[in-house]
């Protein structure tokens, strides 16, 4: 028989596409409580198992188990639940607003709320967050008013970004939230620089950055890891592996034969893979990484293993590229339902309180939304004065921009 020795090109492909019945047994998920918890000054080599394993705390019965149990008081747990719920209610309302034509664009983080909310509760408010576009939970958990976010989404007269940015590309310095870029991944090495500056100034603040598994293929990701390792920067590098980059599976980003957390080990610092839908696990791993950074032991890469329940954005229809019920079959469940279950098991929560909280948050979001829409929405205005588009290109406006500003004013006067 002739042996076929010709080369073959491997193209990663998602296991399940529309029409398939997803079966996630292949993931071989470790049980809650089995992952070891090393000291926060651990060497990269001591985190090898964590980089390939999965830190889980809440077990199938809703109990918190194992060495990573952060042993949070019920008050903090309820706070986490509240912020995650508020994030979801806010997302649903803004998605609807897009469908109503009030904003051209929106991005939900449904199913990924724990990734941002749990870490926000670990960080101090003046630690700088360099988020990607699916971490609105950070702002919500820092009590930044959803009303202000809505004004940005509607580009209305109170939009602090003056109608310059795509909806959801927030900037809130006051809440330790760095300006979002639409170019994915660029914020990752910037966070390292911010953290280096904090260390240079002998400050106590740390930085945290978020990236998706898709954008982790960018050079920015690898350079961030290099600089973070070389200068032992006090930074938490979060990677949200939500399985999907629009329609491309995480295999296309390089996750088919390895984990994303394991990248860190090669760079010389700890990488930890955590169940991103487990609020307690995300909290515990974030606290570990923050403690490590604050004690000058350097960076940590956290891979949040989660699932993007929402479409990528309002501009795509996931039923075209993945099975419609894939999220229902995701073996790690929903972060809100799981934390709720844990609280109920503790006897610190019940359905009546949950229903009341939902009603309260929906009313809060509705009130803010009505107020924001009154100030103007996409397609109808009112907006900021267009002449402001020439501001902030430079600190001081150079002559050529002054000229162009005058030219626009002239044109607007002549317009019928």
């Amino acid at each position, binding site marked *: 028989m002739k042996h076929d020795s010709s080369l073959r090109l491997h193209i990663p492909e998602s296991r399940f596409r529309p029409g398939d019945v997803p079966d996630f047994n292949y993931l071989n998920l470790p049980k809650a409580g089995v992952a070891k918890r090393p000291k926060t000054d651990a060497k990269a080599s001591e985190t090898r198992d964590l980089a390939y394993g999965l830190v889980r705390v809440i077990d199938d019965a809703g109990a918190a188990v194992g060495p990573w149990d952060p042993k949070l008081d019920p008050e903090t747990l309820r706070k986490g639940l509240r912020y995650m719920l508020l994030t979801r209610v806010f997302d649903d309302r803004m998605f609807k607003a897009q469908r109503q034509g009030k904003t051209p664009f929106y991005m939900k983080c449904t199913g990924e709320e724990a990734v941002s909310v749990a870490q926000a509760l670990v960080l101090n408010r003046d630690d*700088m967050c*360099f988020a990607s576009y699916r971490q609105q939970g950070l702002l919500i958990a820092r009590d930044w008013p959803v009303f202000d976010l809505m004004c940005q989404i509607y580009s209305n007269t109170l939009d*602090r*970004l*003056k109608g*310059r*940015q795509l909806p959801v*590309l927030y*900037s*809130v*310095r006051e809440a330790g939230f*760095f*300006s979002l*870029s639409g*170019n994915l991944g*660029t914020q*990752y*090495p*910037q*966070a*390292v*620089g*911010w*953290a*280096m*500056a*904090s260390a*240079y*100034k002998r400050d106590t603040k740390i*930085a945290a950055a978020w990236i998706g598994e898709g954008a982790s293929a960018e*050079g*920015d990701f690898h*350079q*961030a890891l*290099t*600089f973070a390792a*070389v200068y032992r920067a006090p930074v938490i590098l979060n990677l949200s592996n939500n399985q999907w980059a629009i329609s491309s599976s995480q295999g296309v980003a390089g996750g088919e034969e390895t984990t994303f957390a394991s990248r860190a080990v090669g760079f010389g610092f700890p990488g930890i893979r955590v169940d991103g839908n487990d609020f307690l696990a995300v909290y515990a791993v974030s606290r570990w990484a923050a403690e490590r950074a604050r004690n000058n032991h350097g960076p940590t890469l956290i891979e949040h293993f989660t699932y993007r329940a929402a479409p990528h954005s309002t501009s795509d229809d996931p039923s075209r590229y993945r099975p419609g019920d894939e999220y229902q079959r995701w073996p790690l469940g929903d972060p809100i339902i799981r934390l709720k279950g844990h609280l109920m098991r503790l006897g610190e929560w019940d359905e009546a309180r949950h229903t009341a909280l939902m009603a309260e948050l929906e009313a809060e979001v509705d009130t803010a939304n009505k107020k924001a829409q009154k100030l103007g929405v996409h397609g109808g205005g009112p907006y900021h004065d267009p002449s402001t588009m020439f*501001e*902030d*290109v*430079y*600190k001081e406006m*150079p*002559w*050529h921009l002054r000229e162009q500003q005058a030219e626009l004013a002239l044109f607007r006067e002549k317009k019928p």
Partner: protein
Amino acid sequence: MVEALNSAMDVMLARDPDVLIFGEDVGFFGGVFRVTDGLQQRYGEQRVFDAPIAESGQIAVAIGMGAYGLRPVVECQFADYIYPAFDQLVSEAARLRYRSAGEFNAPITVRAPYGGGIFGGQTHSQSPEGLFTHVCGLKTVIPSNPYDAKGLLISAIEDDDPVLFFEPKRLYAGPFDGHYEKPVETWAKHAAGEVPVGYYAIPLGKAAVARQGEALTILAYGTMVHVALAATAETGVDAEILDLRSLMPIDIEAITGSVEKTGRCLIVHEATRTSGYGAELSALVQERCFYHLEAPILRVTGWDTPYPREFEWEYFPGPLRVAEAIRKIMAG
């Protein structure tokens, strides 16, 4: 010029604890062109240090530091190596103030040796300034002598916007007018070779008159200022030579004032011609001085080819080509 640039950073490191310097080989070694020589020894490893060979990472880190409140100065070893950082410069540094409506800014300075005349071939000779002057939000500065180099670099470091500071590497050791066959000169005898020890700043956006004249205006910057001076002397034409110094923002009043006076304009740069910075200069002059012009505006530039290592002097826009253009404009 190397000492002048070194002195600018020395002055700023001493004045402002938020200034720090990093880049490839800039620490212990003092840089491949020696521009940061002795600074790490004087200010310590925390303030002057080596960086991984990753220009994009260097600029990104500088942006993060700038957002924190520092004033980082990054040395990009050759301007030719800046392209990996293009996204961080164009989409990030240049846009940060705008997209955050002034909440964050990137007060960073990127120093990069540019230009030819050293037989560096296509990856050590380029003049990429036109790629950056096209980007709103960035400032681009190119000195032509030691005195300006120091004052402009100090202004760049103090500036709250991102500044690309391109250093004509052929001028590091002395003036160069394109006559490669002549013995190498140092800055010792040059009027602008004398550099005061302490602090002084030259504002960005202001051109200098390198030679006063009545017959023709030559717009130049960097090494080409010296080439233009030589060509002027050789033709005997009474040209006015503007050393632009700052390409963005540009000193439009100096340009229009001179062209309105002379009625003729020649633009010279080392960079390739098509869509180069000279095209912008030509358009500005044409839009504003058309009725003063007595001859078409001409450009003398590098050819639209990569910089060919073996044909350095056929490529470099030397005094012969500039002189020829001067004569052509004067005949027009």
